[in-house]
């Protein structure tokens, strides 16, 4: 039985000995370590250049914080906390129950939406790949000129650039889905022109 992704991410001693004795898992584990190393390297190289806050400045902030008696613990002293608890106990219980139930429903549906979006995007990528492959198969058949062809190719290039930008700028899933669908439409329209002398290949 080969190890799953989660086990490869944090193998136990027993799982580690399996890795050492199994070529398939060892290969996957090597890939996992390579990716981890790149992550380490990149995060070390990209450290932000911070200005050092001098000790004098920090110490004066620390002094202010203490003398003004606004420290976190002081603000939440036990006495105040007890009084607040008594005063707002019933209101808080009612409000908490309302919020907890409300948030649970909201949270579950939003998490499911995220997972659904990921599935939708993965399917759209596959569909795009399938269409481009079909387009390539059609290449070499009829070669009739279509006045829209150039514009469609331009549109496809534009969508690809936008998609790439979205992924690099961590755009939202809705925009990605919209663009992948749009890309799919453009490929279909390109296929309909039956002219793919400059068609993309994967």
């Amino acid at each position: 039985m080969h190890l799953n992704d989660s086990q490869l991410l944090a193998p136990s001693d027993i799982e580690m000995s399996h890795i050492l004795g199994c070529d398939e898992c060892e290969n996957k584990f090597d890939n996992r370590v390579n990716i981890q190393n790149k992550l380490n390297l990149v995060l070390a190289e990209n450290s932000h250049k911070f200005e050092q806050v001098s000790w004098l400045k920090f110490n004066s902030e620390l002094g202010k914080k203490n003398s003004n008696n606004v420290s976190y613990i002081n603000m939440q002293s036990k006495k105040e906390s007890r009084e607040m608890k008594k005063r707002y106990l019933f209101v808080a219980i009612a409000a908490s129950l309302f919020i907890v139930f409300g948030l649970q429903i909201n949270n579950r549906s939003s998490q499911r939406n995220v997972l659904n979006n990921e599935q939708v995007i993965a399917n759209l990528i596959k569909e795009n790949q399938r269409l481009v492959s079909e387009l390539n198969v059609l290449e070499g058949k009829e070669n009739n000129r279509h006045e829209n062809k150039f514009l469609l190719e331009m549109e496809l290039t534009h969508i690809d650039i936008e998609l790439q930008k979205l992924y690099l700028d961590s755009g939202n899933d809705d925009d990605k889905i919209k663009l992948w669908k749009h890309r799919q439409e453009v490929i279909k329209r390109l296929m309909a022109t039956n002219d793919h002398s400059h068609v993309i290949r994967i």
Partner: protein
Amino acid sequence: MRENTGFTVVFDEDVIQSAICGDHASFEKIYNQYYRSSLSLAFRITGNAALAQDITQESFFNIFKNIQKYKGEGSFSGWVRRIICNQSITLLTKNSKMLTDQDDLIFNLESKDLFETDWCDAKIDLVKVMKILSQESRAVLVLHEVEGFTHKEIGKLFNKSESFSKSVLSRAYVLLKDSFVAIDYLNINKSIQEKS
């Protein structure tokens, strides 16, 4: 290759004891030694420079206020590091939606295709791609993969279960992989179009 964070520097027992007794000269030594490393750590976890500065400042207030709570179990730098991590997670989770334990179950931990290839193409900017991750996912990824925390320790930091950490880490990797695959696919198309 890992950045020398400065947490590897060990203070004499005298400095720690003097600091516990409230000696400001010892506070200064500790501050000067660990401040920059703490900032880098908070920045790696959050990916946000302004937040990292707030976290570090608040953490050092807490360190000096609670220094008598350090009982010498484990290294002092490890204690400081843990406070920075705790403060980072506290601030991150303060205003953001968290996955519930029940949501952990939604993610499939049994998948086996995440590491079939080394998909992390060096030509693609990993730091930019990491922006796709939520702050919680980034924090779990950095704590586990870069800072060496176990799933159990991360679960504790988030006040969640061990499976929460496993699930978030796997999900973070899946998102990174999908983004790399998509960008790679688009790059190939672009270069073919340019050639033709």
